[in-house]
């Protein structure tokens, strides 16, 4: 087989390219069949909705690749919103200071997760289910059932300001810049290779000289900080800090990460696929909503898609493995 052909075949074979193609297909079919999908406003709404999910999905991708998970992200978001609201009410009126404090809080909450997982060697699933409840509970302790909504309109309109000449919110540039940072770390730096190694075999990674504990600890810190950033955006976008902000969002993030081709067992996946999956889920949901598909059906569809995304790559991998084995067994006698 010629070199370029092999390259194309390989690229098509990777799940992230499949997701990317699915995204393009859904966008094109949607634009042709559903009234409104082709309008610039549609994309504005999709992007607005995708921003917090994408922000949290970046560190989540790296965490899942190492074989861990962080389910507390939406609660970190909620607690950040609550604290931000409370600080604003008690007289902290500088936005940069509020953002800095929010990020610091997120990092600390992430560090708590990281400490339990790496310091005490507890499974991240159990730890972060615990902090999911704990952080959400604290959010209610801080703000109760109040909502803090009297932010200056300059803040709230700036948060969703479109880029000049478009309808796309400028925050997408922040997401893009952060995506580049995470992509470089994961795909171009030695530490990235270390993350895959951890997911495949933590023991081997340790022998290869990767500091598994420290790396994982910082990943949880990053996850907390990014969730907090999403919380800041959430508060300003909806002009409302509430303790229940973003509740259930962790599932949307994990769904995107898995659909994006990251193996839930760790060791496999790429950022491109995850970002494409965030966009795919957003476009699909909004397009179906525009096509008058009721909420209950929508939930069923996204659920099925998630199952397919978990089963799909595994079945594909199994088939490929079987095919390869058969080929090697038919070849071996003659050699």
């Amino acid at each position, binding site marked *: 087989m010629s070199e370029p052909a092999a*390259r194309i075949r390989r690229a098509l074979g990777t799940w992230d390219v499949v997701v990317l193609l699915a995204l393009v297909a859904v966008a094109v079919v949607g634009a042709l069949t559903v009234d409104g999908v082709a309008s610039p406003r549609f994309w504005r709404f999709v992007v607005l909705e995708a921003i917090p999910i994408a922000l949290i999905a970046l560190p989540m991708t790296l965490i899942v690749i190492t074989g861990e998970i962080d389910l507390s992200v939406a609660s970190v978001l909620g607690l950040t919103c609550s604290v931000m609201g409370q600080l604003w009410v008690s007289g902290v009126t500088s936005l940069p200071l509020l953002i800095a404090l929010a990020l610091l809080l997120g990092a600390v909450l992430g560090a708590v997760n990281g400490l339990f997982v790496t310091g005490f060697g507890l499974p991240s699933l159990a730890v972060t289910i615990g902090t999911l409840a704990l952080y959400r509970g604290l959010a209610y302790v801080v703000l109760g059932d109040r*909502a803090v909504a009297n932010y200056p309109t300059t803040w709230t309109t700036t948060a969703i300001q479109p880029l000049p000449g478009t*309808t796309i919110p400028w925050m997408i540039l922040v997401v893009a810049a952060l995506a580049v940072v995470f992509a470089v770390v994961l*795909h171009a730096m030695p530490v990235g290779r270390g993350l895959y190694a951890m997911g495949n075999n933590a023991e081997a990674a340790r022998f290869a000289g990767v500091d598994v504990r420290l790396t994982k600890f910082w990943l949880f810190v990053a996850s907390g900080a990014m969730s907090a950033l999403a919380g800041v955006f959430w508060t300003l976008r*909806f*002009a409302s800090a509430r303790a229940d*902000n973003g509740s259930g969002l962790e599932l949307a993030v994990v769904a995107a990460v898995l659909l994006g081709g990251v193996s839930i067992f760790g060791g496999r996946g790429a950022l491109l696929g995850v970002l494409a999956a965030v*966009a795919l889920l957003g476009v699909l949901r909004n397009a179906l909503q*525009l096509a008058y598909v009721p909420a209950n059906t929508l939930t069923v569809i996204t659920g099925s898609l998630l199952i397919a995304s978990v089963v799909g790559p595994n079945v594909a991998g199994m088939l490929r493995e079987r095919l390869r084995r058969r080929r090697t067994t038919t070849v071996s006698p003659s050699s």
Partner: protein
Amino acid sequence: MRSGTKRIRLVAMAALTALTFATAACAEDGGDGTTPGGSTGTMKTGLKIAFLPKQVNNPYFTTSDNGGKAAVEEIKGSYSETGPSEASPSAQVSYINTLSQQNTDVIVVSANDKDAICGALNEARQAGAKVVTFDSDTNPTCRDLFINQATAEGIAANQVKLISEAVGPDGGEIAILSATANATNQNAWIELMKTELGKPEYAKLKLVDTVYGDDQDQKSFTETQALLAKHPNLKGIISPTTVGVAAAARYLSGSTYKGKVQLTGLGTPNQMKAFVKDGTVKAFALWNPADLGYLAAYAGGALASGLITGKEGDKFTAGKLGEYTVGKDATVLLGDPFTFNAGNVDQFNF
């Protein structure tokens, strides 16, 4: 080999970003300019009126939205109901955006958060939609009209009247089982009930105690028990909270006080049906959600037809419910609370 895949990935990533920009870069479409005037006093037909409840699959909203559906059919519009399966403001925003893109003429919404959905509603209004809130209002700057289910005065007057009728002409001691001690609406109602009790026709009713069940079933239950032990001559209890009235009814129906101590309050038919039938409760009140939805649809239709603008004093006719006048802060009041009794409670399911 490996770097080749990587390069393809990077190119694809760039393509993805470019695609997003490209599709969005086209200039924003102007939307259709709403034609002013033409308000000859008739409702436009073919209006797209959408109901967006706090959440779907909620019997209360199913009832109100069906009321809205009936009204939309009467004015020959096209009705739809849409909404999130969980009562969250952000999910509601997504549906508002969708409705706005579908060029909906009227969005009838019960807000999950009075501020969080504001931006989306205003964006929809800029795109030409009229926004009517019902059941739960938003910030007045984000909607054209609010359909208020009941006023505090109306609720207080209704509750006192119901307990007076239940206790009978001889009157006697009554008590209130409220929610939490610092619940703003409850306290406002209780104050107004006291004023109401000062009227000569209620001279024989004596309010002896107010207790708090914190809107918890167990606490409301035991508070009722304690209340009856403390006041042996008690003739009636008012519980203007759905949790409280159901818990009090459950206690009374299983005690020797059943039928001797009267109970009324604000409750839902599904919770109270059994207690009305077994004689524990003669009548209780709430608003009729079906009428609320019906009125909201007519109000939205009148707005979208240019018959009213939402300013104080505007008048419109809402089918079988008759004529309504827009009050202060662009609010329309449904009317007095609706009284449920053995005769009508079975017609409701919420």
